Structure formats: C-alpha cells, structure tokens
C-alpha cells in the first residue's frame, strides 16, 4: 500500500532538506535585518511609493516583528516563493516522467492511474510539512534569540493556513503537468501563472471597481500578515482554497485517466 507515495516521498527528502536549510538561513538573515532596521520608520521610507506596492509588500506593518516577518518571510517566501516552488514541483509530477520515459514503467504497474497520480501528489506532503515545521520552529527560536517575541499560536496558524494555499499551487502545477506534454513548458507556465496571479491580486486589490478580480487569485485567500499581527483570519478563505484544490485535483485525475502516456 502507498508504495509509490513512499518511494516518491523518500526521493523528496534530500531536496526538502536543502530547501529547509536555505529558507532557515534566509529567515535568519531577515530576523537579523530586523534588529538593524529597528530604528528606521518604514512607512516614512516608502511614503512616496504607490499604494499597490505598499499593499503588495505589507509595508504598513514593517515596524513590528510580526509585520516584518509577515512581509519579508510570509509574503515573500511563503506566498510567492513557496507558491511558485510547489507549482513548479506539481508541474513536474507527470510531465517529467513522461518526457524521460519513466511513465512507461509506472503506467504498467498494477495500480489505477488515479491512484498513481494521487500517490505522486501525496509525496508532496514531505516538503509541505517539513518546510512549515522546520522553518516555523527556526523563526520562533530566532525571534526569541533577538529578544523579541511572537505569539506561537499565531505563528502556527500562519503556517497551517499556508497549507491549503500551497496545495492549490501544487494542484495548479499538477493540472498543467497532466495537460502539457513537455515538462519545461508545464513547469515554467506553472511558475509564471502563480507569479501573475499574485501580481494581479496585488495590483487590483486597491483598485476600486476591479478589486473583485482579486478573488480569482489563490493568493487572495492566504493572508499571513494579519494572522501574525492580531491572529485574525477568514476560515472561509481556507475553505475556498480547499475547494479549489479539490476541484483541480479531481480534474487532473480525470484528465490523467484519459490521456495517452
């Protein structure tokens, strides 16, 4: 049972470990940088910046450690960086195996295609959980290390709420992977799409009449900074993300069952 998930999960361990170290180092740099910037009034620095930019980078709350982490790590790393990473990884699930001739052997395994794809996707749990857990703990410890504090429950929530969002990103990648024949095209378009969705969300969110367009982007439904600052979040948004994920997942499986390998 779950042999493919186990096999693929093990293959992800190394990359996940490297990524966890990299993200931890980046987080350490950000936390250290906060101590340097403590005396600078961020709002003043960015006073002339366009509102969309201030919105996109959460500049308004840069003065507190929560706001700073929210903008520099959760918006930048989790929402954009990991969003793109999971979309990229999802886009490689099927397309690279087909391109490199591995799907021939997997396709004759005595398991259904639905199960094959589900198990391959399930292996993404490894980076999803490890990165959230390791980097979350690292950030918490580092913040304590510089003599600041962050509410652990809010920190945990910021990570937990990222999971539905990252699942959607991975599922967008998986759908592209099933539809597109060439891995590089699937991967690049998945990465580009997440970036564009995030950009679109940022640009239209302060744009009055068109602000509803932001609803189309999964990035709209994951807002780590408010969670960190005052613990507020919309459960409905997470449910929307889970719904989108389920839809993308089902469509991917249906298309994968039908396509030629």
């Amino acid at each position, binding site marked *: 049972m779950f042999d493919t998930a186990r096999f693929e999960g093990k*293959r992800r361990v190394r990359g996940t470990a490297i990524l966890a170290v990299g993200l931890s180092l980046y987080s350490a740099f950000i936390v250290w940088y906060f101590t340097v910037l403590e005396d600078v009034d961020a709002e003043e620095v960015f006073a002339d910046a366009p509102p969309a930019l201030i919105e996109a980078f959460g500049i308004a709350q840069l003065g507190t450690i929560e706001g700073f982490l929210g903008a520099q790590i959760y918006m930048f790393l989790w929402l954009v960086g990991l969003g793109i990473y999971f979309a990229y990884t999802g886009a490689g699930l099927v397309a690279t195996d087909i391109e490199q001739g591995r799907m021939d052997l997997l396709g004759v*395994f005595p398991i259904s295609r639905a199960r094959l794809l589900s198990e391959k996707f399930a292996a993404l749990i490894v980076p999803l959980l490890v990165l959230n857990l390791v980097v979350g703990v690292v950030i918490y410890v580092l913040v304590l290390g510089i003599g600041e504090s962050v509410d652990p429950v809010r920190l945990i929530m910021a990570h937990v709420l990222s999971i539905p969002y990252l699942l959607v990103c991975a599922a967008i990648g998986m759908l592209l992977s099933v539809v597109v024949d060439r891995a590089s095209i699937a991967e690049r378009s998945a990465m580009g799409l997440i970036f564009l969705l995030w950009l679109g969300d940022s640009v239209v969110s302060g744009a009055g009449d068109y602000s509803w367009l932001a609803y189309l982007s999964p990035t709209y439904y994951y807002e780590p900074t408010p969670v960190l600052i005052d613990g507020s979040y919309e459960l409905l948004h997470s449910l929307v993300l889970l719904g989108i994920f389920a839809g993308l997942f089902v469509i991917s499986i249906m298309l994968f069952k039908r396509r030629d390998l």
Partner: protein
Amino acid sequence: MATIEVENLTKYYGDIRGVDGLSFTVDSGEVFGFLGPNGAGKTTAIRTLLGLLSPTSGSATVLGADIRNESELIEAKRRIGYLPDHLGFNEELTGTQILDYHASVKGENRRAELLELFTPPVDRAIRGYSSGNKRMLGIIQAFMHDPDLVVLDEPTSGLDPLKQERFNEFLREERDRGTTILFSSHILSEVRQICDRVGILRDGKLVELEEIETLLNRSGKRVRVQTTHDGREALAALDGVIDIYQFDDGMQFIYTGGYNTLFAELSKHDIQEADISEPPLEDIFLHYYGDESAPTAEVSSDV
C-alpha cells in the same frame, strides 16, 4: 484462450498513423515476434496493448482483460512484465532502490535468481550505468514478479553479444516454463533465433503473419547455379524466378515455384555447381517491404 487477441486495432496520434487495423493473436506459451523497422508502429502497438495509449478504434484483450477497461487491465498487469524500448529510471537512485520500488508494487520472487543471470551494478546510481547495464536492470524488473506474459520492446539493444546470447538462452528457458512472450525487434537474426511466429509491421499495418518456417517456404529458395550462358538465360526466363544476380559463370536468384519445374529446367543444361538454400530473412524482409532499399543487382567478378 489466447493470451493476446488483437482485433482491428488502430491508433492515430491526431493525423499521424501509429498502427492501422492490426489483428493478431498470441497463444499461451508462445514467443511472438513483432518485426519491423524503427517507426513501423511496433512500440505504438505494444503501448496500446498495455493500456498506456488508448486505441482510436478496434479492440484487444490481454490475458483476458479488455485493454479499454482499466480495472480489468490492472488485474492482468499483475501477471505482465514489460521492458520498454526506452528505459527511464530515476538517475540519482541506485539499481537496488529502483528494484525495491518495483518489488513493493509487483513482487519479487525471482529477483535474486535474475540478479545472478544479469548483473547490473545495483549498488551504483543509475547515472553511472552503461546502456547495457540499464537494459539488464530493465530485464530484471520485467521478470522479477514471475509474470505469465512478458512484453519486450527491442530488448537486446545495448546488450553486448555475450549478454545477448545469455538473454536469448534465458528467453528459451522462459518459453519452456510456459511464459508467453511478445518480442519486438528490427533485427531479423534475433527474431529468427527466438520466435515461434512473426508479425511484420510496416507503416502501421501488419504485412505478414506466418510461422517462420511457413514464411521461409513461401518466400522461396535461394538458388545459386554455375552453368552455361544458355542455361542462365533459360533459368532467368523461368516462372517464379526473381531477384536475379548474374556472375561471370553463374547466377543467383530467388525461386518461388515448385521444385520439379526447377529441376526439369536444370537438367536440360550443363550444371557445374548448384546450391539451393533458405534465403536470409533479410531478403524476405525486403520482399515484404518492397525493394526500395534493396541493393541494386550488380555483377560480381570474383565468384
């Protein structure tokens, strides 16, 4: 019941033909050869039979399972081994890791035995493998769960002659154990050595399907004669004489008629030497594929 039954199987990739109206059966315990040059549709046919491609039209059953029915085919796949033409393994993993994965999904009751016969360096990462080593790893994964049907797509490409011989021997033993084998190749000598029956694919169609001996009989005899000028002319004019090569004092041709007529004609002339043999399978192949690539008849002076 036949192990593989193919009925009018057609597969198009958009407008591009993969196979067209393919029909054949492979009986249980038989080694069936799928012969054809690269691009003839062998791999398409095989991949369609294994459910990797869905047929455009037509039907087929493999070990009794309808290839269009996923759940039936999954059951059948437990008893199928497959060695694809192009072997993609995860380059960063070792042979052992790959085999462990295949074992967990399919089973491995013959793994140890196969590793003694075929000897890829299983402790090393695949990226360091030669094509022969990859092929051997592929052979092991195809047979390790002791399947009833094994589908081999160009199995010997990359194997050195010694390993190739060992593999051929292994296949004969497998056949004697009752394993059904579908074997695709573009190498005639290989098919001739191993297969009980052969289907020749050309441009996506099955051109001929005969037991090899029948095929050889039907495709005539190769006749070499040293005789007089008049004799050569008379023989060349005989019905059923094709592919004539003239030498200084003799000729070679393929004769598709009856022996009596041939001997009656031969007896009328002064024959210094005569040799009647089976034509090489290559020639039969050319016969079925037309002669666009056949060497043009040329006069050889040193015979």
